[in-house]
């Protein structure tokens, strides 16, 4: 990816997260500790601040740097979860990846997030967006950005009836049902912003 393109992409993603910070906070207030919006905003604002330096590096190193930045700034469990995701992408992705490479790397990053969060799909977490998105990535190049974007949004919606088993929301038990998972929503937002940018 061109340096200028990556820099612009990082800024667009950060703008999206910042624009939805209040919505993420509201979702987290319903079933968690209410800090997800502010935490994600802090992390992605920092990524945007560092976008010049990050985008000068080859894509794998840039992804690792994004992950480390999120780990060090987000706070809350979402920092290590998002950080681990990006750091694994950085570790596994080849320099000039094909869609098949991206799909395989995405799979490795999902496995790393599962280990980090001691969680699996179906437990009302960001995994419930990442796993369906990976399915779309593995289904070939035809209309892939549009498919990924739609699937991410519908997958986030599908966390509403789920029972939270991990994280702060699990303390609510059955009362966690009926609310969208904030981490699922934030990952759908980031994925959607990336798809929109790459589609333009």
């Amino acid at each position, binding site marked *: 990816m061109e340096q200028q393109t990556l820099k612009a992409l990082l800024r667009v993603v950060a703008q999206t997260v910042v624009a939805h910070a209040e919505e993420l906070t509201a979702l987290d207030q319903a079933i968690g*500790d209410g*800090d997800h919006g*502010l*935490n994600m905003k*802090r992390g992605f604002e920092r990524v945007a601040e560092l976008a010049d330096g990050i985008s000068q590096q080859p894509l794998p190193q840039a992804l690792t740097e994004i992950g480390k930045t999120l*780990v*060090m*700034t987000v*706070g*809350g*469990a979402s*920092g*290590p*979860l998002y*950080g*681990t995701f990006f750091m694994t992408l950085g570790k596994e992705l080849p320099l000039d990846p094909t869609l098949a490479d991206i799909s395989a790397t995405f799979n490795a990053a999902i496995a790393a997030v599962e280990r*980090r*969060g001691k969680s699996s799909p179906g437990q009302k977490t960001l995994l419930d967006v990442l796993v369906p998105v990976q399915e779309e990535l593995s289904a070939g190049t035809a209309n892939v950005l549009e498919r990924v974007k739609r699937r991410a949004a519908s997958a986030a919606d599908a966390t509403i009836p789920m029972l939270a088993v*991990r*994280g*702060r929301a699990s303390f609510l038990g059955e009362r966690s049902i009926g609310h969208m998972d904030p981490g699922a929503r934030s990952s759908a937002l980031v994925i959607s912003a990336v798809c929109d940018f790459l589609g333009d």
Partner: protein
Amino acid sequence: MSNVGIVIVSHSAKIAEGVADMVHQMVGNAVPVAYTGGNADGGLGTDVGAIINAIDRAWSDAGVVILVDLGGAETNSEMAIEMLEADRRNKVLLCDAPLVEGSIIAAAEASGGAVIEQVKSMAEEMHRQ
């Protein structure tokens, strides 16, 4: 210091400090103790960089155990351990124990010169009784 160090990680700086006070009351300065609480903005939460600093402050050649309160503190502490240099990483253990009781039991055990595995298992065992 040859005794195992204790790191206290809470979402709240006040809780972390208060637990450290209780530990000091129990063991004085016989055990290296460091605490951290709050996110990078000073709000409730935990901060990987601050946890790494706390591990440095409580460092002992005998190792360091970490006591945490809730999920994010655990996940961020695991992340902090992984980000340590390789020769330190396997000398830091996270305890699955309640923060207050676990910290005090761990410190009491450490003050008697117990090895790190013993400190961890004693903190975890008391919690299950």
